[in-house]
């Protein structure tokens, strides 16, 4: 069975890009537009979450905290999407429990490499 990845981003094109790239690698990708929608949609099983940090309603940090507090999926790897200018936000995400990060802009190869590193 293919592994399930939840991509959380308020940018539809970003989600589409993630879905497009990872579907080609054989993963099942589910989309959510912000942290709140992601929490409502949390699929089971869930193997990886890729989340942007800046989102309306609930941002990435809030989402990471909520997932880590959720007994059903608290050990799931979480990748946050950051930018060069967001060093402080990245640290915040890490202390909230993010597993890894990708600095935007990134190539599709970089995305796939990080996903493989975390869930094989």
């Amino acid at each position, binding site marked *: 069975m293919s592994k399930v990845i939840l991509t959380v981003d*308020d*940018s*539809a*094109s*970003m989600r*589409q*890009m993630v879905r*497009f790239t990872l579907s080609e690698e054989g993963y099942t990708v589910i989309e959510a537009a912000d942290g709140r929608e992601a929490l409502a949609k949390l699929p089971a099983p869930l193997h*990886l979450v890729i989340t942007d940090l*800046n*989102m*309306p309603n609930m941002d990435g940090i809030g989402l990471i905290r909520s997932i*880590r507090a959720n007994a059903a999926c*608290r*050990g*799931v*790897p*979480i990748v946050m*999407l950051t*930018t*060069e*200018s967001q060093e402080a936000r990245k640290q915040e995400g*890490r202390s909230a*429990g*993010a*597993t*890894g*990060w990708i*600095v*935007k*802009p*990134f190539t599709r190869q*970089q995305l796939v*490499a990080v996903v*493989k*590193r*975390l*869930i*094989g």
Partner: protein
Amino acid sequence: MSDRLRQAFDEEARELLGELEGALLELDQNREDAEIVGRAFRALHTIKGSGAMFGFDNIATFTHDLETVFDRLRSGQLAASSELINLTLSAGDQIRAMLDEASGRGRADEQRCAALLAELRSLTGMTERSGAEPPPDRVKAVEAGLARRWRIHFLPGPEIILNGTNPLLLLRELRELGELEVALDASGIPPLSEIDPERCYVAWDLTLTTAAPPEAIRDVFIFVEDHCDLAIEPVPGQAAAEREADERRPSPGRSGGARASASGVASSIRVSAEKLDQLVNLVGELVTVQARLSELSAKRDDADVLAVSEEVDRLTAALRENSMSIRMLPLRGTFERFRRLVHDLGGELHKQVELALEGADTELDKTVIDQLNDPLIHLIRNSMDHGIETAEERRAAGKPATATIRLSALHSGAQVLIRVSDDGRGLDAQAVRARAIERGLIEPTAQLSEAELFSLILEPGFSTAREVTDVSGRGVGMDVVRRNVEALRGSLDIASKPGEGMTVTLRLPLTLAIIDGLLVRIGEMHFILPLASSLECVELTAQDIGNAHGSRIAMVRGETVPYIRLSEYLRLGTPRPEREQIMVMETEEGHYGLVVDEVLGNHQTVIKNLGRLYRHVQTVSGATILGNGTVALILDPHRLVRGAIQAAQDRKCGGRHKRPAPGKNTQETVEFNAFTRKENSIHVT
């Protein structure tokens, strides 16, 4: 990048620009509203981020500075001004123009881009940013440079798994960089009662041989750097020349063994057989003591004692395997010796006989091999003398003048099958019958199957040869063979077709000392079943019993398996428990189930002989001492099943033949019961 994705970005960016405009206009009315600044920032952030990803580098570069400005607005470092708002609105128009250009509609003015940026900088006092370097491509790095060896100590923090990192995947990624030797440091694992399954307690010592730069190695650990102890250092003393030599040599782990054998160290030494016997005896005692230790430590529930006990258990099993394998010898030596015998006998009897060997490399315990010599000589002699015809007779029967005796050996579970077959005249069932009646072995009215008739030639004082010859025929051969084989806890089978020859199959245990057994319980008694013949264990459900309508057949994975309820068959008189288990055994008669109360588990079984008094007990091949000092009987599933089939047939025949078949059921169970009563009393007192 696919057009579909570019299209998606185009649409989204226009939407975001609309949002940006709206936010900017609101901001003009309400300069202090952080929420509005946030909206504008997010729009710019997304345009920049996605733009770079979808190949709109010019848009990304252009938007970068705008984003930075709004980030500073957001954090209060800058205040919104009408100049800034107007400038951003123009910048939005410029982005739109760039989008148009990308989709082939019109051209964007690059000069205007630069002008807008310059204006923005002068307005906010920012300096020109240095372009962000794309992260180095690891794959390229691997290709360059010479392979070096790195020692990596990786101690993940305990919360690493909770944070979603699977350390094994990191090791796998390292392996992609080069040759990786992995050693696990499990010393940090606490006793079972203190283990939190969500925490990581282990560390790894890794040796990586790779051409990749150290940054590439560090990059693998980049997500966990802050949550682990990580030391990456080159293996010392690696001059360039040495490194090259290293590449030509096999890896250090393997080279040790290779060197040893190349220089001829791994030769053999001669040890007296007694010393080996002593060794095996000691190992047997050790296994028995180990069983006691396991039992005690399981009762104590002390993690430290349990750890030691498990360690000793592993070592004992390894020691056992090792010392048993020392005693294993191929049968070839014994087999080859018979060539001479066949040659000499052929001359004596004026018969042309060839000896064919099969499976001579099959290994068997030395003790068994030693005691196998005599029975095999008897069997070969018997074949040459009685079975094989003279050359003239063979020609007349349309067979090749040269007869063949085939000696073969093969493994079957924990047993070895040795077959002596000839292509002679075979056994004449009627002659055997007549002879047996004449000798008073059976009643004239007895109804016997062919196999039973053939087994009569193993009875003492039976010989079908009309004349006594020098070679065989005194009627002592075959019963001696049977005695010898049974002394080895083996069994003997005869198959024959008149005119085509006869095959005698010896079924021998691999070893006489220690076997892997399965400990089962029936009532208060324990029994051992040989693990090598055990296939699987299933529950005997009330439904199975109901479905079978009184016949003793269970369905196991769609296969019908007849079963024997041991407590009844062995007349143990134990009450039937609520739940029973069937051990499905592989026997000569096919798959049969043995019903027991409970299967307790693996047991290294040191085989003790039962003594002369119990030599008629066919279903028990020995006894062993359990951890608590009690005795468990070792059951022989082949004989058990065969005995049960025989008993069923006897019931069908209604006892029409009176001959007490050798070692048959009635007689046996009486003695068996005598034994079990005794055994019971041993461990009751």
